[in-house]
């Protein structure tokens, strides 16, 4: 998933009160600066693995590896928990939903690294690289990316309507 991550992160931030209440941690308001910042940073955090690749510190295979694992999500949650439990919960949910969103890609997610190298994928679309115009264009030549990512924008609009946010206020 590429552009659809934007809509998914926005949708997660819209559910911040429900997520924090369900976890029994201090409530965070929907689409507050706090919820948007935590959710967007956490949701995009796995894709920051492109930075060491671009800097030449890692090979292309580093993409969708350790940053897309359950251990990474747990580590981020554990690191945030002592400072702010609500942020930890929102971050873990954002990370797990990032993995769900990426599960359609053929590159597969090594969710159980370092315990298992098995990659999990629904093979809905072929992965064509971690960045660049070709990767972007070729992703949207495939049907399921439109279904899943476009669907997320419809869901985000529905949340705008439910929360009476412009243009549904």
């Amino acid at each position, binding site marked *: 998933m590429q552009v659809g991550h934007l809509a998914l992160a926005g949708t997660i931030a819209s559910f911040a009160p429900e997520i924090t209440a369900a976890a029994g941690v201090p409530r965070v308001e929907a689409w507050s600066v706090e919820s948007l910042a935590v959710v967007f940073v956490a949701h995009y955090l796995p894709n920051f693995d492109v930075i060491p690749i671009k800097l030449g510190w890692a090979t292309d295979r580093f993409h969708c590896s350790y940053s897309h694992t359950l251990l990474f999500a747990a580590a981020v949650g554990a690191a945030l928990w002592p400072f702010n439990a609500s942020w930890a919960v929102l971050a873990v949910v954002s990370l797990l939903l990032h993995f769900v969103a990426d599960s359609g890609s*053929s590159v597969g997610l090594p969710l159980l690294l370092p315990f298992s190298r098995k990659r999990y994928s629904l093979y809905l679309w*072929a992965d064509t*690289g971690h960045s660049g115009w070709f990767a972007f264009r070729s992703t949207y030549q495939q*049907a*399921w990316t439109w*279904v899943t990512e476009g669907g997320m924008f*419809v869901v985000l609009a*529905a949340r705008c*309507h439910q929360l009476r946010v412009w243009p*549904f206020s």
Partner: protein
Amino acid sequence: MFEYRRTPYLGLVFAAAIGFAVTWLLETPERPLTLAQAAIFYALSYLPGLGLAMLTDPAPRKAKAEYLKVDFYAPRDVGEAGE
């Protein structure tokens, strides 16, 4: 991107169905959607609608099959040597 000329138009049909379903689910008598708000839902519904239409078109399937043959994460020096 499409092999059939009908695909973008078929996307409109799917978009209408999705848009209708979404507005039916969200709209209440106390809070009817304005024309502009309904138009936003129908316009956004074209994105997944087009995707559903693309599922009936061979071109996206062929593109996926071609891309699946390529390892886009292969080490670059090996790839260049192979070429």
